Protein backbone atom coordinates (compact mmCIF):
# COMPACT_ATOMS: atom_id res chain seq x y z
CA UNK A 1 0.00 0.00 0.00
CA UNK A 2 2.86 2.29 0.81
CA UNK A 3 4.26 1.84 -2.67
CA UNK A 4 0.83 2.53 -4.15
CA UNK A 5 0.50 5.89 -2.47
CA UNK A 6 3.85 7.30 -3.38
CA UNK A 7 3.86 7.89 -7.04
CA UNK A 8 7.29 7.07 -8.32
CA UNK A 9 8.74 7.06 -11.76
CA UNK A 10 7.94 3.38 -12.03
CA UNK A 11 4.25 4.11 -11.83
CA UNK A 12 4.53 6.35 -14.84
CA UNK A 13 6.60 3.78 -16.66
CA UNK A 14 4.04 1.06 -16.02
CA UNK A 15 1.29 3.32 -17.23
CA UNK A 16 3.36 4.10 -20.32
CA UNK A 17 3.98 0.41 -20.93
CA UNK A 18 0.29 -0.39 -20.63
CA UNK A 19 -0.57 2.36 -23.09
CA UNK A 20 2.15 1.11 -25.42
CA UNK A 21 0.74 -2.40 -25.34
CA UNK A 22 -2.76 -1.13 -26.07
CA UNK A 23 -1.35 0.68 -29.07
CA UNK A 24 0.49 -2.42 -30.23
CA UNK A 25 -2.64 -4.53 -29.95
CA UNK A 26 -4.54 -1.92 -31.93
CA UNK A 27 -1.95 -1.81 -34.69
CA UNK A 28 -1.69 -5.56 -34.95
CA UNK A 29 -5.35 -6.49 -34.83
CA UNK A 30 -7.52 -3.74 -36.26
CA UNK A 31 -8.51 -3.58 -39.92
CA UNK A 32 -9.60 0.03 -40.08
CA UNK A 33 -6.68 2.22 -41.16
CA UNK A 34 -7.94 5.19 -39.18
CA UNK A 35 -7.92 3.19 -35.98
CA UNK A 36 -4.50 1.77 -36.80
CA UNK A 37 -3.21 5.32 -37.16
CA UNK A 38 -4.80 6.24 -33.85
CA UNK A 39 -3.13 3.26 -32.21
CA UNK A 40 0.19 4.54 -33.50
CA UNK A 41 -0.61 7.82 -31.78
CA UNK A 42 -1.19 5.85 -28.59
CA UNK A 43 2.25 4.26 -28.93
CA UNK A 44 3.90 7.62 -29.47
CA UNK A 45 2.12 9.00 -26.44
CA UNK A 46 3.30 6.12 -24.32
CA UNK A 47 6.84 6.96 -25.36
CA UNK A 48 6.25 10.60 -24.54
CA UNK A 49 4.99 9.71 -21.12
CA UNK A 50 8.17 7.74 -20.43
CA UNK A 51 10.36 10.57 -21.65
CA UNK A 52 8.66 13.16 -19.50
CA UNK A 53 8.75 10.83 -16.50
CA UNK A 54 12.48 10.33 -16.97
CA UNK A 55 12.89 14.05 -17.34
CA UNK A 56 11.22 14.43 -13.96
CA UNK A 57 13.41 11.68 -12.52
CA UNK A 58 16.71 13.23 -13.51
CA UNK A 59 15.55 16.81 -13.11
CA UNK A 60 16.62 17.86 -16.60
CA UNK A 61 14.56 19.08 -19.50
CA UNK A 62 15.99 16.83 -22.19
CA UNK A 63 13.12 14.40 -21.91
CA UNK A 64 10.58 17.17 -22.39
CA UNK A 65 12.40 18.49 -25.43
CA UNK A 66 12.34 15.00 -26.88
CA UNK A 67 8.65 14.74 -26.13
CA UNK A 68 8.10 17.91 -28.11
CA UNK A 69 10.05 16.47 -31.01
CA UNK A 70 7.93 13.36 -30.88
CA UNK A 71 4.74 15.41 -30.90
CA UNK A 72 6.06 17.17 -34.00
CA UNK A 73 6.79 13.82 -35.51
CA UNK A 74 3.32 12.58 -34.66
CA UNK A 75 1.81 15.57 -36.42
CA UNK A 76 3.86 14.86 -39.53
CA UNK A 77 3.00 11.19 -39.38
CA UNK A 78 -0.71 11.87 -38.97
CA UNK A 79 -0.75 14.31 -41.89
CA UNK A 80 1.04 11.97 -44.27
CA UNK A 81 -0.79 8.90 -43.00
CA UNK A 82 -4.17 10.49 -43.46
CA UNK A 83 -3.12 11.76 -46.88
CA UNK A 84 -2.27 8.22 -47.87
CA UNK A 85 -5.56 7.10 -46.40
CA UNK A 86 -7.48 9.51 -48.57
CA UNK A 87 -5.59 8.46 -51.67
CA UNK A 88 -6.24 4.85 -50.73
CA UNK A 89 -9.91 5.44 -50.11
CA UNK A 90 -10.28 7.23 -53.40
CA UNK A 91 -8.87 4.31 -55.31
CA UNK A 92 -10.26 1.36 -53.42
CA UNK A 93 -13.29 2.88 -51.71
CA UNK A 94 -12.45 1.13 -48.49
CA UNK A 95 -10.50 1.91 -45.36
CA UNK A 96 -9.59 -1.68 -44.56
CA UNK A 97 -5.88 -2.19 -44.33
CA UNK A 98 -6.22 -5.85 -45.38
CA UNK A 99 -7.14 -4.76 -48.83
CA UNK A 100 -3.87 -2.97 -49.45
CA UNK A 101 -2.55 -6.05 -51.15
CA UNK A 102 -1.43 -4.74 -54.50
CA UNK A 103 1.91 -3.11 -54.98
CA UNK A 104 0.37 -0.79 -57.52
CA UNK A 105 -2.91 1.00 -57.80
Amino acid at each position, binding site marked *: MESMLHITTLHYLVLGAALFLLGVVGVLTRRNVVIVLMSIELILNAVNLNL*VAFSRLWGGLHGQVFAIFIITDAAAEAAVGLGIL*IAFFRNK*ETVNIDEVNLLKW
Partner: protein
Amino acid sequence: MTPVATPFFFYLFAAIMLIGGILVITRKNPVHSALALIVALLAQASIYLMLYAPFVAGVQIILYAGGIMVLFLFVIMLVSIERSMKERQFNSQWVAGTVAAVALGGLFIAVYAKAEKIFPHHAIRITPDELLNTQGVASMLYGQYMFAFEIASLLLLVAIIGAVVMAKKRI
Protein backbone atom coordinates in the same frame (compact mmCIF):
# COMPACT_ATOMS: atom_id res chain seq x y z
CA MET B 1 1.90 25.75 -5.68
CA THR B 2 2.60 22.18 -4.60
CA PRO B 3 0.36 19.52 -6.06
CA VAL B 4 -2.31 18.13 -3.76
CA ALA B 5 -3.62 14.57 -3.62
CA THR B 6 -1.10 13.37 -6.17
CA PRO B 7 -1.84 9.64 -5.87
CA PHE B 8 -5.53 10.23 -6.28
CA PHE B 9 -5.10 12.29 -9.40
CA PHE B 10 -2.49 9.95 -10.78
CA TYR B 11 -4.75 6.95 -10.51
CA LEU B 12 -7.70 8.93 -11.81
CA PHE B 13 -5.90 10.11 -14.91
CA ALA B 14 -4.17 6.77 -15.40
CA ALA B 15 -7.55 5.06 -15.32
CA ILE B 16 -8.97 7.57 -17.79
CA MET B 17 -6.02 7.04 -20.09
CA LEU B 18 -6.23 3.28 -20.01
CA ILE B 19 -9.98 3.18 -20.48
CA GLY B 20 -9.59 5.66 -23.30
CA GLY B 21 -6.89 3.50 -24.85
CA ILE B 22 -9.02 0.38 -24.60
CA LEU B 23 -11.94 2.18 -26.19
CA VAL B 24 -9.70 3.40 -29.01
CA ILE B 25 -8.79 -0.11 -30.07
CA THR B 26 -12.18 -1.71 -29.51
CA ARG B 27 -14.74 0.73 -30.90
CA LYS B 28 -16.39 -0.04 -34.19
CA ASN B 29 -17.00 3.53 -35.12
CA PRO B 30 -13.77 5.45 -35.76
CA VAL B 31 -15.37 8.67 -34.52
CA HIS B 32 -15.93 7.09 -31.13
CA SER B 33 -12.36 5.84 -31.19
CA ALA B 34 -11.13 9.33 -31.93
CA LEU B 35 -13.15 10.80 -29.08
CA ALA B 36 -11.78 8.20 -26.69
CA LEU B 37 -8.29 9.04 -27.88
CA ILE B 38 -8.92 12.73 -27.24
CA VAL B 39 -9.99 11.99 -23.69
CA ALA B 40 -6.89 9.86 -23.18
CA LEU B 41 -4.68 12.61 -24.57
CA LEU B 42 -6.21 15.22 -22.29
CA ALA B 43 -5.71 12.96 -19.30
CA GLN B 44 -2.13 12.56 -20.40
CA ALA B 45 -1.74 16.34 -20.53
CA SER B 46 -2.86 16.42 -16.90
CA ILE B 47 -0.24 13.80 -16.05
CA TYR B 48 2.38 15.98 -17.72
CA LEU B 49 1.30 18.79 -15.44
CA MET B 50 1.85 16.47 -12.47
CA LEU B 51 5.31 15.77 -13.80
CA TYR B 52 6.14 19.50 -13.77
CA ALA B 53 6.11 19.73 -17.52
CA PRO B 54 3.50 22.44 -18.16
CA PHE B 55 4.87 23.42 -21.51
CA VAL B 56 4.63 19.89 -22.87
CA ALA B 57 1.13 19.72 -21.43
CA GLY B 58 0.15 22.89 -23.28
CA VAL B 59 1.69 21.62 -26.49
CA GLN B 60 -0.12 18.33 -26.00
CA ILE B 61 -3.47 20.11 -25.74
CA ILE B 62 -2.89 22.49 -28.62
CA LEU B 63 -1.21 20.13 -31.04
CA TYR B 64 -2.68 16.78 -30.21
CA ALA B 65 -6.18 17.47 -29.01
CA GLY B 66 -6.73 20.67 -30.97
CA GLY B 67 -4.78 19.86 -34.12
CA ILE B 68 -4.03 16.26 -34.92
CA MET B 69 -7.30 14.89 -33.64
CA VAL B 70 -9.29 17.46 -35.56
CA LEU B 71 -7.41 16.30 -38.64
CA PHE B 72 -8.39 12.74 -37.81
CA LEU B 73 -12.04 13.63 -37.36
CA PHE B 74 -11.92 15.62 -40.56
CA VAL B 75 -10.64 12.66 -42.54
CA ILE B 76 -13.10 10.27 -40.92
CA MET B 77 -15.88 12.52 -42.11
CA LEU B 78 -14.47 12.69 -45.62
CA VAL B 79 -14.25 8.93 -46.08
CA SER B 80 -17.52 7.15 -45.70
CA ILE B 81 -17.40 4.81 -42.76
CA GLU B 82 -20.71 3.03 -43.14
CA ARG B 83 -19.25 0.13 -45.08
CA SER B 84 -16.28 -0.50 -42.86
CA MET B 85 -18.48 -0.37 -39.81
CA LYS B 86 -20.54 -3.26 -41.07
CA GLU B 87 -17.54 -5.42 -41.83
CA ARG B 88 -15.33 -7.49 -39.61
CA GLN B 89 -13.38 -5.22 -37.26
CA PHE B 90 -10.38 -7.39 -36.47
CA ASN B 91 -8.08 -8.95 -39.02
CA SER B 92 -7.35 -12.62 -39.35
CA GLN B 93 -4.11 -12.57 -37.38
CA TRP B 94 -5.65 -10.96 -34.35
CA VAL B 95 -4.81 -13.95 -32.15
CA ALA B 96 -1.17 -13.87 -33.16
CA GLY B 97 -1.11 -10.09 -32.71
CA THR B 98 -2.55 -10.24 -29.23
CA VAL B 99 -0.19 -13.00 -28.25
CA ALA B 100 2.76 -10.98 -29.51
CA ALA B 101 1.56 -7.95 -27.55
CA VAL B 102 1.10 -10.00 -24.42
CA ALA B 103 4.61 -11.40 -24.87
CA LEU B 104 5.89 -7.86 -25.17
CA GLY B 105 3.99 -7.04 -22.00
CA GLY B 106 5.71 -9.95 -20.28
CA LEU B 107 9.02 -8.57 -21.43
CA PHE B 108 8.16 -5.19 -19.98
CA ILE B 109 7.19 -6.72 -16.68
CA ALA B 110 10.41 -8.65 -16.56
CA VAL B 111 12.48 -5.58 -17.34
CA TYR B 112 10.69 -3.37 -14.87
CA ALA B 113 10.88 -5.98 -12.13
CA LYS B 114 14.63 -5.99 -12.60
CA ALA B 115 14.97 -2.29 -13.15
CA GLU B 116 13.01 -1.38 -10.06
CA LYS B 117 16.27 -1.17 -8.19
CA ILE B 118 17.54 1.56 -10.46
CA PHE B 119 14.66 3.89 -9.82
CA PRO B 120 14.29 5.66 -6.52
CA HIS B 121 11.22 4.41 -4.71
CA HIS B 122 10.00 7.83 -3.81
CA ALA B 123 9.34 10.76 -6.04
CA ILE B 124 12.16 13.21 -6.08
CA ARG B 125 11.68 15.92 -3.55
CA ILE B 126 13.52 18.63 -5.43
CA THR B 127 10.88 20.49 -7.32
CA PRO B 128 12.09 21.74 -10.68
CA ASP B 129 11.52 25.41 -11.24
CA GLU B 130 8.12 25.21 -12.81
CA LEU B 131 8.02 28.91 -13.55
CA LEU B 132 11.05 28.66 -15.79
CA ASN B 133 9.97 25.47 -17.52
CA THR B 134 9.01 27.18 -20.75
CA GLN B 135 12.18 29.25 -20.83
CA GLY B 136 14.25 26.16 -20.13
CA VAL B 137 12.65 24.18 -22.91
CA ALA B 138 13.01 27.14 -25.24
CA SER B 139 16.69 27.69 -24.57
CA MET B 140 17.30 24.00 -25.05
CA LEU B 141 15.35 23.87 -28.29
CA TYR B 142 17.20 26.85 -29.67
CA GLY B 143 20.53 25.98 -28.08
CA GLN B 144 21.57 22.42 -27.65
CA TYR B 145 18.92 20.96 -29.93
CA MET B 146 19.05 23.62 -32.60
CA PHE B 147 20.00 21.17 -35.32
CA ALA B 148 17.31 18.70 -34.33
CA PHE B 149 14.83 21.54 -34.23
CA GLU B 150 15.67 22.56 -37.78
CA ILE B 151 15.45 18.96 -38.91
CA ALA B 152 12.02 18.74 -37.29
CA SER B 153 10.87 21.82 -39.18
CA LEU B 154 12.17 20.26 -42.38
CA LEU B 155 10.28 17.10 -41.53
CA LEU B 156 7.11 19.10 -41.13
CA LEU B 157 7.68 20.76 -44.49
CA VAL B 158 8.15 17.38 -46.11
CA ALA B 159 5.02 16.15 -44.37
CA ILE B 160 2.99 19.11 -45.64
CA ILE B 161 4.11 18.55 -49.20
CA GLY B 162 3.65 14.81 -48.86
CA ALA B 163 0.15 15.17 -47.48
CA VAL B 164 -0.85 17.56 -50.24
CA VAL B 165 0.60 15.31 -52.92
CA MET B 166 -1.15 12.30 -51.47
CA ALA B 167 -4.51 13.87 -50.94
CA LYS B 168 -4.77 15.84 -54.15
CA LYS B 169 -6.27 14.07 -57.06
CA ARG B 170 -4.37 15.92 -59.71
CA ILE B 171 -1.45 18.18 -58.99
